[in-house]
């Protein structure tokens, strides 16, 4: 069972949370002027890292807020947690 440090609620069991995909995926500024290839890349291409992965998570069955995690996808160790809209800063180590 992963325990996830929600920035507002503290350390909670993973079943209270939903994974929200890769973090920092930027929507193209002008979709009408974006090529099919670039739009497909935005919609579908993902890093899917083996190792440290930056992800969005939501504390769905708690405070219902979104935040970011840097998590190791092999060991499941949570390396860092930071708020939505920020870049990686605070470490949990």
């Amino acid at each position, binding site marked *: 069972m992963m325990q996830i440090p929600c920035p507002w609620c503290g350390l909670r069991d993973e079943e209270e949370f939903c994974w929200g995909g890769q973090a920092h995926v930027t929507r193209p500024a002008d979709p009408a002027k974006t090529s099919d290839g670039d739009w497909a890349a935005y919609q579908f291409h*993902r*890093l*899917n890292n083996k190792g440290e992965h930056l*992800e969005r998570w939501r504390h769905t069955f708690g405070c219902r807020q979104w935040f970011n995690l840097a998590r190791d*996808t*092999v*060991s499941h160790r949570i390396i860092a947690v930071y708020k939505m809209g920020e870049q990686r800063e605070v470490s949990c180590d």
Partner: protein
Amino acid sequence: MQNYSLLSIAKHALSGHRHWQPAWRNPEPKPHYDVVIVGGGGHGLATAYYLAKNHGITNVAVLEKGWLGGGNTGRNTTVVRSNYFYPESTRFFDHSLKLYEGLSRELNYNLMLSQGGVTNLAHSRHDMEMFERWSNALQLQGVDAEMLTTEQIQDRFPLLDTSPEARYPVWGGFIQHRGGVVRHDAVAWGYARAASALGVDIIQNCEVTDIVQSADRIQGVQTSRGQIRTDKLALCVAGHSTVLAAKVGLPLPISSQPLQAMVSEPVKPVLNGMVISPIVHAYVSQSDRGEILLGGGADRYPSYGQRGNYPLIEETVAAMLGLFPSFSRLKLMRQWAGIVDITPDTSPIMGLTPITGLYLSGGWGTGGFKAIPAGGDTMAYTIANNRPHELIEPFGLERFVTGALVDEGAASGVAH
């Protein structure tokens, strides 16, 4: 290849079974091959076999970083079926099931195919309507599917709770009679033995650490056992597809997630065939050793850990116990997971890539095991002819740009 038969067993018994040949050779890698396949699982081994058998291309190496069949091929829940929905999918998966039906004989290896039927359970009027639509679609495509009443399902599965008080009332369902289970390890071993006998080199403990490209094409690979040159490189690495594709700067629409499975202690025969409730997310069968084999949805976040986590176990077991209350008395014996490569439309990615000489068979997600024979057959054709086999044209990487997705989220059966 030493033939396996009743006669050969009797003959070898006379010398105490000391002179059986190893099932496959264990050669040192050569510096060059006509085709290099990365991934010694079912898809990689089947591709190598069909390259040799159907196309006469035998100067082939299969490189496996661990042990042969130790990835998803050794970790799945052994189900084979072809009850998908869209014609693109049913054509492909039924071709695969038909190949499975003759495969033990073709490979001279007992795959233990047991076609006890795959039954889908409906728990509401709406589920029944959707199942009518699904089974009708299959029948229109010439794939066997039969609607079942609650009584017929009760007859087939005496331990299933079909009473009105059931936690998950059973309104009926449908069955694909030709669906069933296959001994998963035997598929890897059978293809490996046959391919090796035809001249394919299977190189285990050989990890591809880099892919060498120049002059706009594949030149070879760097491995933990040296450099190997080739003009044709096929990636058949399932959950590691993005790891390898990143080495050539090829982005993919794949998320690698855990898919767990577990078995109980062995018990006497109590379950005939496979039964799945796509709605409550559990599917159950009984192995030939008597273990109750249980699977469910994938863990809902990326992982390369091959283990998954407890919440999914609890969810899946709770679903199973709602269907089979008496199974609460079973002790779970073993639990494991693979790394499944999930795509946005739950259909595989097969064929050529933008890089000359690089071929991809991936994105199999939770449905790769049943696809092994057709996957190998079509990839071998694709590699030999440098163009996609007709059956896999709908599954090309470019569909994510054109929008021609083949959405098999429902028919894939397992929640993602």
